[in-house]
């Protein structure tokens, strides 16, 4: 029974296994399912194993049993993008109108539904994938609307993780895989950073040392002598430097916050610093980068075994990195170009990494990323990237 329903579920990409389908048959055979509502809940609990697919399941179910139209995935995604655009419009009508090259007043006459339709039409006009051009909506280009672009007044559309559905970014199949991974959560980061440990004995003596106990017992001519040891605790020193300035980092704030929260709970000795775009003479201890500057030269006094983790998108104008006084903050003067400073940090602390929230495929398009990659080993701020980074941080040399 319901074999076609089963295959339709598979077809739209929900991983349903034959075993679970047989189990559903068993439930049907036992007379546990007596109505279509029962079937809906039972089949979902038995077949679908992740809330990410609930929405898709609903669509398939409605299609199969109620004859509702099944949207093809393309259209579904467009819908998402258009909605994201509408949200942006609500936040910043002027910016959006400028970005689309439309008159703000004209757009504001439209009702939300009309506006949504307008965005949808605008997206549909564009029939092929488009990245890197000037006019259409896509990714990585100078187009004003889209994301990861470089239009000064541009804005990000979609791509910000939402409460339940995974990350959806405009028109781009590449991101499908990424969306499957879901946004980084504290638990995931914890899993990845767990390996970053340097264990030394501390705390009360409450662990039995079996080998030593046997040895001492023998020495004692068989009279039992139980030897206790201190348990191992993590004493790793970590410096975390976070780029928290500018709109280019804005979309990643949530992810970085998660990382930060985890790190704070995890390591015995953790110093967190902030900077904007890149590091000059100082980094700051306060997030507003104003009150508590900390000189880079001071860092030299720290244990060279300290692990340094820098988080930032490493994207800026080349002069910010290469020239003396490169900072875009007028009050921040520097004696050395930022490049020198970064090299100094990399030389002082042999275990240092740069985590970049941008996807690796986008790196070659930004010059400063390539330059910084030569100084620091750079990793994506994803689970896989974190794992590689941790591996690098734990390596002996």
């Amino acid at each position: 029974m319901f074999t076609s329903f089963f295959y339709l579920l598979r077809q739209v990409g929900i991983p349903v296994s034959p075993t679970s389908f047989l189990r559903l048959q068993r439930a049907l055979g036992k007379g546990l399912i007596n109505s279509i509502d029962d079937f809906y809940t039972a089949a979902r609990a038995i077949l679908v194993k992740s809330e990410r697919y609930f929405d898709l399941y609903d669509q398939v179910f409605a299609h199969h049993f109620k004859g509702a139209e099944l949207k093809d995935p393309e259209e579904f995604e467009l819908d998402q993008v258009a909605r994201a655009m509408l949200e942006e419009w609500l936040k910043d009508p002027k910016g959006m109108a400028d970005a689309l090259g439309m008159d703000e007043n004209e757009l504001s006459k439209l009702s939300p539904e009309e506006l949504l339709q307008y965005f949808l039409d605008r997206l549909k006009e564009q029939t092929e994938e488009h990245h890197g051009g000037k006019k259409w909506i896509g990714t990585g280009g100078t187009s004003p609307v889209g994301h990861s672009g470089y239009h000064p007044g541009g804005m990000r559309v979609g791509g910000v993780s939402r409460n339940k559905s995974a990350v959806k970014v405009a028109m781009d199949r590449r991101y499908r895989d990424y969306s499957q991974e879901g946004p980084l959560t504290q638990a995931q980061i914890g899993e990845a950073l767990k390996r970053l440990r340097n264990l030394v004995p501390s705390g009360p003596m409450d662990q039995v040392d079996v080998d030593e106990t046997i040895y001492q017992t023998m020495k004692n001519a068989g009279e039992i002598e139980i030897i206790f040891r201190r348990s191992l605790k993590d004493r790793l020193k970590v410096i975390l430097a976070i780029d928290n300035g500018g709109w280019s980092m804005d979309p990643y704030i949530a992810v970085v916050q998660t990382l930060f929260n985890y790190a704070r709970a995890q390591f015995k000795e953790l110093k967190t610093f902030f900077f904007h775009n890149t590091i000059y003479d100082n980094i700051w201890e306060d997030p507003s980068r104003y009150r508590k500057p900390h000189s880079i030269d001071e860092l030299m006094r720290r244990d060279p075994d300290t692990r340094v983790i820098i988080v930032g998108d490493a994207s800026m104008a080349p002069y910010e990195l290469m020239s003396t006084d490169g900072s875009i903050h007028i009050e921040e003067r520097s004696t050395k170009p930022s490049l020198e400073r970064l090299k100094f940090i990399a030389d002082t602390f042999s275990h240092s990494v740069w985590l970049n929230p941008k996807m690796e495929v986008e790196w070659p398009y930004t010059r400063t990323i390539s330059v910084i990659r030569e100084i620091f080993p750079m990793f994506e701020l994803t689970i896989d990237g974190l794992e590689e980074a941790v591996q690098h941080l734990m390596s002996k040399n």
Partner: protein
Amino acid sequence: MMIRTIYKKISFLARSKRMQNQTSATDKFAGASKYILDEELAQIVNISMALEMPLLLKGEPGTGKTMLAHAISESLNMRLIVLNVKSSMKLVEALYQYDTLTRLNDSRFGDSKRDVSNIEEYIKMGKIGQSFMSEERVVLLIDEIDKADTDFQDDMLDVLDQMEFDIIEIDKTKRAKKRPVIIITSNAKKDLSDPFLGRCNFHHIAFPEPDMMRRIVQVHFPDISKDILESSVRAFYKMRDLRGIEKKPATRELINWIRALQADPDFNVKQLVKGDMPYLGVLFKKSPDYAMARNSVARLKI
């Protein structure tokens, strides 16, 4: 979707009498005294019980995942055994423990009544072991499974699938006497491994809608005034939506907050409407969150 809520306050004694006459396999779960159950979830629980499969519950903290197991155990009058999973836990700890130290001491001083030559006397059952050895059917809650590593999860499911485990020290296989009702909870957004998921039924509990939340509050405060209920729930959802909050307040916090509001003789509902929220510390437990909430509630209008 229509959500019918069922909550009954049944005298415990009367029910336990009735339960004794029934076999547990035919029992249907329909809610408990302090737990609001939506029909969908009740259906899923019943199906899982009938199919004898573990039920995996996901959802953000405060959606009542753990409470569900308590509710099932209360309503079906079964004993609840809770296994709180820890990250360092080994599967064998959840099954049984061989207390070598006590045995060593006994053999050394010889002043206990235990028979030192009988290893079985030094085997203590872990939580899963207890649920297998119980003469009656029990509810086994495995809380926060995501804390343990994947190997633990897969191995545990093997045990739960086969309903038996070996005690190596005495070379005996222990079989479950009555198959327990197994509820597993997970907080993580990350999926558990495929073999694990393949052996469970799955449900995701969404954070309750305001309507549902009002009912939940009413169950806990049967004689709460409509004003307080209405404004506190509305204020609560507004505050959940504040941007940049690290740990959003959940159901538990709301209940405690209302309790605090009611305990304060000077409190007036109009305060809430004006955006003056007392006892924010009950809702926000991290100091940056608290400060942020402090600053932004003044601007909230409800």
